[in-house]
């Protein structure tokens, strides 16, 4: 919302400074966004008089002037054609900044002649584009400030323009009068009496108005109109043009400018039809669908069924409360004008405006809510202004519908400000504030003014009182702790788990990323996502069209971006939500880690190697261990398409309960994602691992035995397809009391192995640790167990002990 200081002063009697007004506006909740104050930049320019002007000895176009200033006579060289003896001019002294030139002038020599300042043109002061010569003033005393002169003779030139942000609850502040009312309530002046007019019609309007029955509810509340015949629609007066120009509107013609004036002056959008182009009567109704209208913005709109429009006998002529039609719009030639003031349903305006994508001043105001009670007043004021500026003769007012009743009152509890806000404001002051804002108090009931649709309860009264009193004065007051003593823990087990997982992965050397939750469709599809359910209806770009099904997608994109910057080896991770559907509950937390390239930089110790599956597996297991997942999980092969089919696995508690996945990323996935080199990754499904039942912090007693443990190694020849886990599990199952650990320590595969052991064979070697509990193991005991181990492994795997 933009307005000028002089416009504000037509409603507010004040001598407050601009700075005080700006501070109060922001503090009242009408946040000042921009101020354009020409006086600020012109404050140092003073009025001077040219005593003589002689031709410059070295230049035909220059003149050497003797200028009378408040600091005595000065010599100034000037190139303006109108510089001559006797004229009153505007002087810039050395050291002053010239806004139109963006320079600070100094004493200088021009073609050998000293010049002590400058006489300014309008353009040099950014007052206009005028630059044919220096300013000649018809009056003015030498030494007076030029801004003071302007304020007296041409106030528009030094009028400050103020732009404020209006929150959606304050449609009244979309009019200058509403802003003035707030400032008056704050004590920055007195609100001037509301303008009044009553124009008697001299004839019956030839155009009548009706509102269809189905449009009376949630469509158009009231429509008032009148014909004014014999107007002369020329340019509007200078003061109106100046105000509109200052707030960024283009003056068009008196009739149009008058409607714009009311829009901004009192938040009262109006519309004017050229009555000679209206065929028959006007009818406010709902569209059937498919009708079209060429609107004032010269775009054609097609209506859906149920929108509210104004039609004449020939069809739709105006989108009610949003934008008029081009056909019936007023032009310079208009002589008979039909003036419309109507109250529209706010929701209907919002819906139609959004559907048609029209952002007009009228829609903006009508969907926030204009003052319905002002409707009959507005049509009189506007008629008067048309008569004043364009002449003409008014008809009687035609009315369809009724001005809606907005009367309501809420109880003012003056203690509530203290208990809710914590400010001590005397009851009388509270009542004065509300009265100044237009509330009417009857006992402790406050009637809400018709221009404040936002006030819907007692809490709103508190807000008004506190706002006007200034929240800046609010003093903090300690809030008691919720409970006495040492605060207990507040994180849920899941929240703790997330933090532990995050810090564990960082400790393993990964750099945490935060990537967008949405990715492009193609990428989403690579990770089993990309369904319509997870699609955004209005994505910001096709790169961000679907909710991510897996965090790995974003990490691979991040890896590709870093590789493009020349970083080949990466360890990236993210902790965050992934989306397996489009419903609120279809979200789960993942921890994903990605290793790309080598394990580290080239190094003197020869430890650099390409990352492999077992790096990712180790890190996944480390995260699971850190969050307290059961140590005994199964490793099952996985089927997800983004993994290398033979090199990925799931860490599971049973086939359906997957705690984590790990593997080598499929070469095709890497290619599509633009990642070069080897890439392995893991994903931990953070919510899957069961939480330990909350028990005491006490640990079970340590069961350390004094008896000597024994380790025995076994190597088995098995088929290459036999998995290590089957050997380990078979051995471990032989005697659970005695065998405390089985560890696979060697795998011998490949050509040499097959040459030694036969085609399709490999060797797996395990260490079995035996821990006796009651007596030291004798060689015989060990042999017995060993025989059982060998038999069981051979049976389970079809292998043989390697001789």
């Amino acid at each position, binding site marked *: 919302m933009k307005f000028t200081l002089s416009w504000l002063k037509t409603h507010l009697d004040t001598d407050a400074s601009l700075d005080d007004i700006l501070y109060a506006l922001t*503090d009242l*909740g009408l*946040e000042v966004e921009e101020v354009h104050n020409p006086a600020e930049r012109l404050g140092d320019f003073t009025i001077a008089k040219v005593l003589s002007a002689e031709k410059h000895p070295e230049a035909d176009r220059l003149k050497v002037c003797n200028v009378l200033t408040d600091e005595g006579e000065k010599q100034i060289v000037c190139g303006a054609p109108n510089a001559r003896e006797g004229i009153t001019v505007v002087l810039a002294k050395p050291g002053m900044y010239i806004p139109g030139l963006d320079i600070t002038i100094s004493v200088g020599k021009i073609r050998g002649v000293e010049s002590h300042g400058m006489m300014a043109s309008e353009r040099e002061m950014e007052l206009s584009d005028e630059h044919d010569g220096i300013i000649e003033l018809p009056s003015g005393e030498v030494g007076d400030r030029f801004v003071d002169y302007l304020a007296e003779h041409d106030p528009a030139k030094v009028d400050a323009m103020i732009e404020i942000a209006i929150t*959606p*609850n*304050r449609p009244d502040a979309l009019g200058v009068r509403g802003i003035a009312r707030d400032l008056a309530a704050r004590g920055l002046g007195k609100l001037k009496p509301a303008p009044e007019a009553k124009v008697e019609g001299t004839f019956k309007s030839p155009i009548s108005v009706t509102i269809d029955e189905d449009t009376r509810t949630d469509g158009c509340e009231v429509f008032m109109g009148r014909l004014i015949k014999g107007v002369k629609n020329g340019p509007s007066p200078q003061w109106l043009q100046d105000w509109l120009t200052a707030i960024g509107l283009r003056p068009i013609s008196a009739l149009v400018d008058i409607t714009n004036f009311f829009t901004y002056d009192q938040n009262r959008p109006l519309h004017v039809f050229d009555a000679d182009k209206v065929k028959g009567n006007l009818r406010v109704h709902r569209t059937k669908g498919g009708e079209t209208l060429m609107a004032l913005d010269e775009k054609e709109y097609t209506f859906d069924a149920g929108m509210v429009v104004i039609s004449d006998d020939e069809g739709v002529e105006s989108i009610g409360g949003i934008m008029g039609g081009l056909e019936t719009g007023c032009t310079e030639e208009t002589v008979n004008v039909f003036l419309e003031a109507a109250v529209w349903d*706010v*929701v209907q305006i*919002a819906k139609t405006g959004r559907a048609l994508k029209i952002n007009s001043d009228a829609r903006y105001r009508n969907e*926030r809510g204009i003052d319905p009670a002002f409707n009959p007043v507005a049509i009189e004021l506007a008629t008067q202004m048309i008569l004043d500026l364009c002449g003409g003769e008014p008809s009687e007012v035609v009315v369809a519908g009724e001005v809606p009743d907005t009367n309501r009152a809420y109880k003012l509890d003056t203690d509530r400000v203290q208990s*809710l*806000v*914590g400010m001590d404001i005397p009851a009388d002051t509270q009542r004065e504030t509300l009265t100044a804002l237009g509330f009417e108090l009857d006992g402790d009931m406050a009637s809400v003014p018709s221009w404040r649709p936002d006030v819907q*309860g007692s*809490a709103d009264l*508190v807000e008004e009182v*506190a706002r006007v009193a*200034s*929240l*800046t004065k*609010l*003093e*903090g*007051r300690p809030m008691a702790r*919720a409970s006495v003593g040492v*605060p207990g823990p*507040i*994180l849920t087990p899941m*929240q703790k788990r997330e*933090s532990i997982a995050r*810090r564990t*992965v*960082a*400790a*393993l*050397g*990964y750099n*945490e990323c*935060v990537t*967008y*939750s*949405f990715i492009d469709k193609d990428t989403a599809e690579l990770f089993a996502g990309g369904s319509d*359910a997870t699609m*955004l*209806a*209005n994505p*910001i770009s096709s790169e*961000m069209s679907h909710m991510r099904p897996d965090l790995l997608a974003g990490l691979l994109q991040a890896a590709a*971006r*870093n590789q493009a*910057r020349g970083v080949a080896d990466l360890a*990236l991770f993210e*902790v*965050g939500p992934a989306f397996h559907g489009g*419903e*609120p509950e279809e*979200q789960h937390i993942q921890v994903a880690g990605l290793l790309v390239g080598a*394990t580290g930089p080239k190094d*003197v*110790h020869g430890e650099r190697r390409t990352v492999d599956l077992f790096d990712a597996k180790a890190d996944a297991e480390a995260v699971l261990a850190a969050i307290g997942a059961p140590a005994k999980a199964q490793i099952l092969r996985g089927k997800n398409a983004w993994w290398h089919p033979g090199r990925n696995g799931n860490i599971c508690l049973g086939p359906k309960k997957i705690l984590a996945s790990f593997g080598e990323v499929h070469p095709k996935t890497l290619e599509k994602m633009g990642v070069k080199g080897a890439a392995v990754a893991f994903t931990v499904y953070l919510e899957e691992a069961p939480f330990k039942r909350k028990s005491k912090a006490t640990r079970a007693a340590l069961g350390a035995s004094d008896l000597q443990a024994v380790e025995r190694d076994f190597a088995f020849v098995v088929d290459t397809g036999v998995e290590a886990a089957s050997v380990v599990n078979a051995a471990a199952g032989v005697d659970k009391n005695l065998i405390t650990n089985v560890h696979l320590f060697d795998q011998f595969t490949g050509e040499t192995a097959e040459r030694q052991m036969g085609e399709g064979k490999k060797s797996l070697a395990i260490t079995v640790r035996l821990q006796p509990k009651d007596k030291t193991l004798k060689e015989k005991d060990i042999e017995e167990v060993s025989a059982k181990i060998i038999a069981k492994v051979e049976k389970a795997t079809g292998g043989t002990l390697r001789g």
Partner: protein
Amino acid sequence: MDDLRQKYLEAVASVTDEAALEDVRLAAVGKKGEIALKMRELGKMTPEERQVAGPALNALKDEINSALAAKKEALADAALDARLSEEWLDVTLPARGRPQGTIHPVSQVTEEVVAIFADMGFAVAEGPQIENDFYNFDALNIPPHHPARQEFDTFYMHRDEGDNRPPHVLRTHTSPVQIRAMEKTGAPIRVIAPGRVYRSDYDQTHTPMFHQIEGLAIGKDISMANLKWVLEEFFSAFFEIDGIKTRFRASHFPFTEPSAEVDIQCSWVDGQLRIGEGDGWMEVLGSGMVHPKVLEAAGVDPEAWQGFAFGMGIDRIAMLKYGIPDLRAFFESDLRWLRHYGFSALDMPTLAGGLSR
């Protein structure tokens, strides 16, 4: 006897390796060595002579044995010294690599904020990021078609034809978590809710996803003055600067009443922002007293309970605290940025140890 002593002590002193030393030992104190031979001669002596010669011979044997042992140790030390001196390594070679991981500033700052509010008795609440329009809007007193809805630049989810429910949204703020938390536990309640939020806006200072933290405190007599105190305590603790002042400015949010935008005290010195000093103000968050309709929507009786809510940008306060210039870089995963602005894995923010190092 003196000759014998001198002969062998000199021999021990002069050998340079263990083999020669063994030869000397055998010659002197071995079974057939010279001392042993002398011992054998003791039998031929008179008792008087024996009483003199016996102890003398024994003493000589002990002395030579000691000398041999000392020499042996010296030779071994010399050999070790020689070996060690050959085992010289260039200790200026680089050590074995240990990868250094980092924690993202958003995670770190979230934990800092949690640590502070935990001390004031706030629990951490969570909610979904794909949200239905009741929680994101209606329950927060933003009815359909209210102009306030348009100010959020909302992302809507796709709706299949025939599914006539209002489309879900990507939550535009963390405020829906207020409703979910109150529904779950009722009043009194103190929670904060950190997390991702989404708005359709992308330019120099906006990204379509960012992070907010919501605060909610409902009790019997919690007032806006308490809110101001809580926020001032928070900012002082978070920025680790005593006595940061805030300024409340009237504003409007549909879900609070009265509503205030909150500025913190700051100044600009040589283009550098200084928080907690000077007479400038910078807007950092929106807040207010929870609207009675919002309490009602969450099943809390507005006649019996009242309290405040606030919401602020985690990314934004991270930028302010740690001097991070560009919001967009938070989500670009540039390794240089992650390393420079990231935090060490074990850098857990605690009030006991201080939030930042």
